């Protein structure tokens, strides 16, 4: 058998899916429909030729990107600046974007993570974590703990001991409730690897949390 580099990225054709209906379950690998992907690919192609044609992509993703960034910084002004830098970097590098089934949004978020890291280094600020009571309760539940002022404080201390990549995973998976597929697309890892990392992260958080009791 010859090596087909695309084999890993292709999935069963529509015809095959129709044939297998009722016999097996095949999960769609995408967050967007094929039609949306086609439209988006055309928009990306247009923006490659003429940056002014970037408008549809900018308008579609601005709110989501701003929200993603705002979750990770302290002020709205910082979020606006980093969102602008992210879109500039995206447009500069749009020629390098290759879909391979990964939605454009995931690629944008990857760039945003780079811009955020640059911001933390340059501004010498600590990464901001924005979390509400429900999210704290959810995490405590994952750790098998009841919510109280004591456990709440202990969790905050435990979170301080997580590495940046672990915190990134915690934010995406538990605070932002992103599906595993999207987390994989953003972090460029396989779904199995993502799940293994989340599992290890929870184990680590639990170990640290328990050590603080």
């Amino acid at each position, binding site marked *: 058998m010859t*090596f087909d580099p695309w084999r*890993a990225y292709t999935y069963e054709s529509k015809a095959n899916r129709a044939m297998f209906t009722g*016999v097996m379950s095949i999960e769609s690998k995408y967050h967007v429909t094929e039609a949306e992907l086609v439209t988006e690919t055309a928009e990306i192609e247009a923006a490659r030729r003429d940056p002014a044609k970037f408008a549809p992509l900018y308008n579609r993703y601005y709110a989501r990107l701003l*929200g993603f960034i705002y979750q990770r910084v*302290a002020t709205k002004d910082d979020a606006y600046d980093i969102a602008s830098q992210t879109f500039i970097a995206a447009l500069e590098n749009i020629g390098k974007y290759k879909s*391979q089934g990964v939605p454009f949004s995931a690629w944008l978020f990857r760039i945003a993570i780079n811009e955020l890291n640059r911001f933390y280094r340059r501004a010498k600020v600590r990464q901001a974590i924005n979390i509400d009571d429900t999210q704290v309760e959810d995490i405590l539940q994952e750790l098998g703990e009841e919510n109280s002022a004591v456990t709440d404080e202990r969790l905050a201390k435990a979170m301080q001991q997580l590495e940046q990549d672990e915190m990134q995973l915690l934010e995406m998976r538990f605070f932002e409730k992103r599906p595993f597929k999207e987390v994989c697309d953003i972090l460029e890892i396989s779904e199995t690897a993502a799940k293994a990392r989340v599992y290890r992260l929870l184990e680590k958080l639990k170990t640290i949390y328990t050590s603080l009791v």
Partner: protein
Amino acid sequence: MDKYNINRNRDPLTPEDVQKGKDFDTFMKAYSARPKPFWGSKTMYMSIATVGIIAVVAGTWVVMNNSESTTPTENPKTAFVTPPLEGLDVKDTTYFVDAAAGADFIYKTGSFIHVPQNAFVDSAGNPVSGKVEIHYREFHNTAEIFLAGIPMTYDSAGSRYHFESAGMLEITAWQNGRPLKVNSASQINVAMASDTADQKYNVYYLDTTAKNWNFIAKDKAVVAGFVADSTKTKPLSVADVAPPVLPSKADKAKHSFVIAFEPSEFPELSVYKGVRFQVDETKTPYNKKDKNIQWEDVNIARNADRKSYTVTFMQGANKSTYVTGVVVDEANYAGAMKVYNQKYEEYQTALKKKQDDILTAMSNHENQLMNADARRIFVNDSVLSMAMAARRANVGDAKENMVMREFIIRNFGIWNSDCPASLPQGPEMFVQFIDSKTKKEIQLSRVFLVEKGKNAIWTFYASDFAKFRFNHDAENLVWAMTSDGKLAVVSTDAITKGLDDMAKAKGDDKDKKLKLEMEVASSSTLTGVQASLMLGI
């Protein structure tokens, strides 16, 4: 000191907040006014002279300080299974199953996964109910194994063996983000479609904790197919009905070729006039030098996506390969679209008929018989038919039967149908790896020797470079990863050249070194096409 600034219950962004920052015109002004990249700028050229001087000084320092340099060692934190190139690992397919009910699945290669009722337990050994996710993938050739980062050496009784594979699989199960274990009382069975019927293989399980393969049992290849019967018709498959190829209008700014092809080989193209093969430069950049070469032969291969074609020009050992799309010239475009629309309608009708035929055939279990082995694996003809259809559509294997290898999944993880392969026969040599561009030696911690036609990867560590050996009568390749994460490859031709140079070199044979020139990727990030072209498989 705290690492993070944790804020609680902050107000979320309002639509007004979003609108305040969302202004495409302002964004475009900022984009236009941004500092231009350094590369190619005047500043860059002015800086080169200065950098050059510094580089000479720094270079001298590096050489002096590396005179006793040791071979780079691998990062001890590196995971046991580590894909060497980002984004090129073999992706997995996700299946969902109700744990209490179980289910059967057919993977794209035709492999059959049987999940019995109550097959899962949690980490504490408690039975699991509800929806479970199964992640499944397979590895069938050296490139897939290499790109997945799966170790192909096996340590047993103090000796290291290398593996030759008849196929590998990875299966894991998850619920709510947590890994599950196999219920030993209700184990999953996988009948993995294999590319070889050879009976020399064993079943191994990769123990990632002990970092070694565990021998499980002797493997047995089983041929699953339909009994030869004059009344038997070919198994039905929707893959037999191919959609028409949608031609694009030729882009004069892009390079394209007019190639006289055999209409019977490419009936989907022969219906159009003025067909050209237009280079897809996002996958294979156009080489201007090719235009001036008098090519002797050309090969056109239809790609799995059924839209693009790989065109290879040949002149002796010289080859040039392009991924192309089908286009027609402007004069014939309107006519081509008319033909396409008509063919598309015919395709839809034929597809519907084929699907109906398949459903009819599936409901009639008496119209085909399976042989005894196949019957043991597949529940009925319909399932076998579907497995073969999947294999035909995704792997391109048009055989009338499938070689299956059975795995009883006792633990989730990587399972392998392998046999220990001895090192290739050939004289031992002291090998050095040289960057083909800089002509400087590359320090590598290990290299992987691949012999075309064998599904094996032989690993040589730096300590083995003084006794490197390979079969001189075979076509060999050497793959490696540089210390800065770039793919480096010694081609078959470079090995031949290295042997020739070594033979011509003066001095005693025992003092001679085999110098192999490696092509080093310009970046640690490669596309699938770039990687496959470099790997040469």
